[in-house]
C-alpha cells in the first residue's frame, strides 16, 4: 500500500509534481500513466526517498521510505534512469545490495535465474544491452522479495518477448498479493497490464480508477466495421445519427453507435458484416482527459 498525500516537487520555477494524492493498493497492478515529463519519475523517486518532497508526504505501508527497517525487503524499485555501476558485474551489484539489507546470498543467484541472466551474471553491467540492464534492474527490485514493487517504465528497451515477460511477471506478483505500481507513457501496454490506473498530467492527478472504467468514460469509443457493401451501411448509420469515418484500409470507424446497434442494423438491412470490433482505446480516453486538463488550466489562468 502506497499513500501519497499532497505530494509536491518544484525544480526552480517548474512545478514537476503538484499536490498529488493517490493510493496504490495491494493485490493488483496499478498503472501510473502520464505523458513524458508529467512527473511520473519524480513521483517514483519521491516514494523511494531519492528526491525530497517540497510539500506533502508519501508512505509505503504507512511509513516513509526513510524509516523502513529493511528497505529492499519492503520496497523493490526499478528506476527509469540507470542505477548500476557499469564496471561491476551483475552478480557483484546484486551481492552489494543484498549485503546492505542482510538478504541471504543465495537469493542473488535466485533472482539472476528468475530474470534469465544466469549466463551473463559474471559480466560487467556496462556491456549489457538495454533489455539486459532492465532485467538486472528488475532482479535488484525482486532481491528482497518485497511486498511492494515500483517499476518505472519497465518495458523500455525490451523486445516483444521481454515485454510479455514483464507483463506476466507484474500480474503474477500482484496475484501473490503484492502492491505493484508501474509507470508508463505507453497506453496500449497499460491497458494490457494494469487493473487500476493513476493518471497524471503536468504533475496533477487527472484520474484514479479501474482501467475498464477509464476506457468506458471515453466519449471517443469507436467500433471498427467491415461490410460487404460499406457505403450502404455507412449511409444507414449516418441516418441513425452515428458518425462514420472511412479508414484507409477499407474499414470504417463508427462512433455514436454500439456494436450491438450496428450489428442489428446490418442484419435488418441484409448486409453481411466482415468485422465488428469495439475499440476500447485507452489512448483516446487518455488524450481526451489530458486535453481537458490542459484546456481547463489554460482557461483558468
Amino acid at each position, binding site marked *: *500500500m502506497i499513500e501519497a498525500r499532497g505530494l509536491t516537487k518544484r525544480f526552480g520555477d517548474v512545478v514537476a509534481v503538484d499536490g498529488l494524492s493517490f493510493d496504490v*493498493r*495491494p*493485490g493488483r497492478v496499478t498503472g501510473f500513466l502520464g505523458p513524458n515529463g508529467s512527473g511520473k519519475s519524480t513521483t517514483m*523517486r519521491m516514494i*523511494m*526517498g*531519492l*528526491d*525530497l518532497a517540497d510539500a506533502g508526504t508519501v508512505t509505503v*505501508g504507512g511509513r516513509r*521510505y*526513510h524509516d*523502513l*527497517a*529493511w*528497505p*529492499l*525487503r*519492503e*520496497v523493490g*524499485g526499478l*528506476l527509469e*534512469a*540507470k*542505477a*548500476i*555501476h*557499469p*564496471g*561491476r*558485474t551483475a552478480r*557483484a*551489484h546484486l*551481492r*552489494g*545490495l543484498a*549485503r*546492505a*539489507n*542482510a*538478504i*541471504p546470498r543465495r*537469493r542473488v543467484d535466485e533472482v539472476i535465474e528468475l530474470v534469465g541472466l544466469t549466463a551473463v551474471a559474471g559480466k560487467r553491467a556496462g556491456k549489457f544491452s538495454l533489455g539486459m540492464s532492465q532485467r538486472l534492474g528488475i532482479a*535488484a527490485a525482486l532481491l*528482497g*522479495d*518485497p*511486498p*511492494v514493487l515500483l517499476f518505472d517504465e519497465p518495458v523500455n528497451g525490451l523486445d516483444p518477448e521481454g515485454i510479455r515477460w514483464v507483463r506476466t511477471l507484474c500480474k503474477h506478483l500482484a496475484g*501473490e*498479493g*503484492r*502492491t505493484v505500481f508501474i509507470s508508463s507513457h505507453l497506453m496500449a501496454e497499460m491497458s494490457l497490464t494494469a487493473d487500476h490506473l493513476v493518471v497524471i498530467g503536468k504533475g496533477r492527478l487527472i484520474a484514479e480508477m479501474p482501467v475498464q472504467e477509464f476506457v468506458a468514460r471515453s466519449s471517443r469509443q469507436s467500433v471498427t466495421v467491415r461490410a460487404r457493401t460499406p457505403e450502404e451501411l455507412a449511409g444507414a448509420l449516418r441516418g441513425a445519427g452515428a458518425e462514420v469515418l472511412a479508414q484507409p484500409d477499407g474499414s470504417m470507424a463508427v462512433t455514436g453507435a454500439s456494436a450491438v446497434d450496428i450489428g442489428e442494423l446490418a442484419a435488418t438491412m441484409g448486409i453481411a458484416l466482415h468485422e465488428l470490433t469495439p475499440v476500447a482505446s485507452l489512448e483516446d480516453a487518455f488524450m481526451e482527459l489530458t486535453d481537458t486538463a490542459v484546456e481547463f488550466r489554460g482557461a483558468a489562468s
Partner: protein
Amino acid sequence: MTAAAVPAARRGGATGGRAGLADAVGSEWIKFWSVRSTGWTLAVTLVAMLGIGALATATGRDFVEDPTRRSLIGFFLAQLTLGVLGVLCMSAEYGTGSIRSTLAAMPRRPVVLAAKILVLGAVVLVVSEVLSFAAFFMGQALLSGTGRNNAALGDAGVARAVVGTGIYLAVLALLALGLATVLRHTAGAIAAYAGVVLVLPIIVSALPASLDDAITRYLPANIGITVVTTTTTEGHLLGGAPMFNPWAGLALLGAYTVAVLLLGCWALVRRDA
C-alpha cells in the same frame, strides 16, 4: 489484503532490527573491491611508492642528507593516486547513477557516508602503511648497499616519519572522498583535490615572503613534507618558513578533512540523489 499476503518466511534473511552501519559497511566493502578502478589506483600507488623510492635511493651520488625522506619520496605521486581512489569512491556513484541503488538500500544517507569513510579509510591506511614501511626498508637497503648514508627505524624521527606518511596518505584519501561528496563530479572533484594538494603550494610560494611564511604551513602538501622529513621536529623546514610539527600538522589536516566531510554529509542529506 496487505503485505501479509506474501508469506514472511519466503523473504528470508534477518528478522527484526533494521539495516545499520554494519550492513552498509559490508555492502561498501563488496562495492569497493568489485570495480576495476580500485585495483588500478592501488597498483599505481604501489608502483609510485616502491618504484620512485627505489629510483631515488638506488641511484644518486654523494651524501644523502635525509635518507628516510628520500626513500619515502614516492608519497608525492601516491597522494595523487589515493586521492583519485577517494574521489571515485563517491563520484562514480553519481557518474553511473548507482547512488540511487545505494540510497534505496540505505536511505539514511549519513550512514552511507560513514560506511564509505570506514571502508576507504581502513583500506588506504593499511595499504599506505605497508607501502611506507616497504619503501623505507627497501630504500635503506639500497642506500647501505652502495655504502651511502642511511637510516634505521630507531633513529630520531624515523619511525614517526614512516608511520606518519601512511597516516598522511590515508587522511588525504578521506579528504578526497569529502570533496567528491560535496562536488559529486569526478573531474571537478579531482581538479579540486589536485588544486589543493599540488597547485596551492605553487601559488602560495609565488606570494611575497611575508605572506608565504604566514600561509604555507597550513597547506596539506607542506604538512606532508614535514611528515616525511625526519628533521622537522623543531617546526622548521628547509631553513625557510615556520612549519607545524608533524603531529600537529596531521591533526590540522584531519580537522580540514572532518570539516569537508561534514559539509559533504550536509550536502548529501539536503540534495536530491
